């Protein structure tokens, strides 16, 4: 066990203190600048009617994902203290990352409409494709297919390939579970009640649903990309094969970073398609 001051510092600061600071920051409501940045990306006008809804839902997503992942962030830092054994700990960053995205999905699923007195609803049908394009929704499963085939091929035919099934199989299963959960979350988001309200509130609600759906699918894509990239690099650790497969690593890592950026910054993949024809509200100035 390596418990010198430097190891403790490199364990505590990046894996305990920094996530802790992020949790504290997440407990605050989003700033006006953060809200306007989101509104610009989602093509939503912030008004007096929808300002509270936007602040509440964006803030909730941050709180849930930070609180879900914080208790697990220290796990990948443990090898700094106890050394490289057990080996699975050196590759355990996906554990808090999975908690982070599960927290993000759960936050998106909360917040059904309020039903009191006279009730109103639009006769516009809603579907999951209104919030996330169908091809983006199927991307995680499309990426996990080659991973599973590659893993099976290595196991059956790659006798000399130094690959650890006990690491890759659980990661593949987690990525598949998150992909299925993301699809379920997107469908649940689309089917959640949406009582009719002011057009600006409906716009914001649709954009927030699109943001939640994007976070769910982007999380699944990110895990699938990391899985595929990790598998390819493990299957070709050195020599010309490693050089030949480097572009795959660059693409999968770059794609995963892009997806993580979308989740962290709460960007919708596309503005919701349900808002065509609704009157544009007057913006709220600050």
């Amino acid at each position: 066990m390596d418990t010198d001051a430097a190891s403790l510092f490199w364990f505590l600061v990046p894996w305990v203190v920094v996530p802790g600071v992020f949790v504290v920051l997440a407990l605050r409501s989003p700033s006006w600048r953060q809200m306007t940045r989101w509104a610009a990306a989602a093509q939503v006008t912030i008004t007096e009617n929808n300002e509270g809804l936007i602040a509440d839902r964006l803030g909730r997503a941050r709180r849930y994902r930070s609180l879900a992942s914080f208790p697990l962030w220290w796990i990948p830092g443990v090898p700094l203290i106890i050394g490289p054994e057990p080996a699975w700990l050196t590759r355990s960053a996906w554990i808090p990352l999975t908690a982070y995205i599960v927290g993000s999905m759960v936050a998106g699923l909360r917040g059904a409409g309020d039903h009191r007195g006279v009730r109103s609803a639009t006769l516009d049908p809603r579907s999951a494709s209104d919030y996330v394009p169908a091809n983006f929704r199927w991307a995680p499963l499309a990426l996990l297919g080659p991973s599973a085939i590659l893993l099976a091929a290595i196991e059956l035919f790659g006798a000399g390939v130094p690959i650890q099934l006990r690491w890759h199989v659980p990661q593949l299963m987690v990525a598949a579970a998150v992909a299925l959960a993301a699809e379920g979350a997107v469908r649940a988001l689309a089917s959640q009640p949406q009582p009719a309200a002011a057009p600006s509130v409906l716009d914001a609600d649709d954009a927030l649903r699109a943001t939640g759906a994007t976070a769910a699918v982007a999380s699944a894509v990110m895990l699938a990309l990391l899985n595929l990239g990790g598998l390819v690099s493990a299957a070709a650790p050195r020599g010309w094969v490693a050089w030949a497969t480097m572009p795959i690593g660059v693409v999968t890592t770059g794609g995963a970073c892009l997806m993580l950026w979308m989740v962290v910054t709460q960007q919708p993949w596309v503005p919701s398609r349900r808002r065509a024809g609704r009157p544009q509200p007057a913006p709220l100035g600050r």
Partner: protein
Amino acid sequence: MIITVDPAAEEAPYAQVRGQVLEAIATGSLLPNTRLPTIRQLAGDLGLANNTVARAYRELLADGVIESRGRRGTFVRAEGIAVVADAQRERLDHLINRCMTDARALGAPQEEILEALRRAAIGATA
């Protein structure tokens, strides 16, 4: 197109949903071949039981105003507006016949009844 249901109203919620869909079709707010929300979605949005909205849809289907296209959903029939117009005409005929019967029972001559109807129509549009 927004519909409203008042649970405290005398009219049953399913009848309110049905009536407003018919009105939307009659006024052109819902065009032929427009897809309607699923029963679950509309029931959830209105805070009603699925069965309530299902009953409204069932009656609209029986009226021939909407049609189910399997997994693709429920749509306003191309002939829906004509069906609604026929039903409205039939209801209007029924109301006028009842009114005429009551007016004749008063012993008023035909011309006077027509004049009263004309006055009422003008008064209603004024």
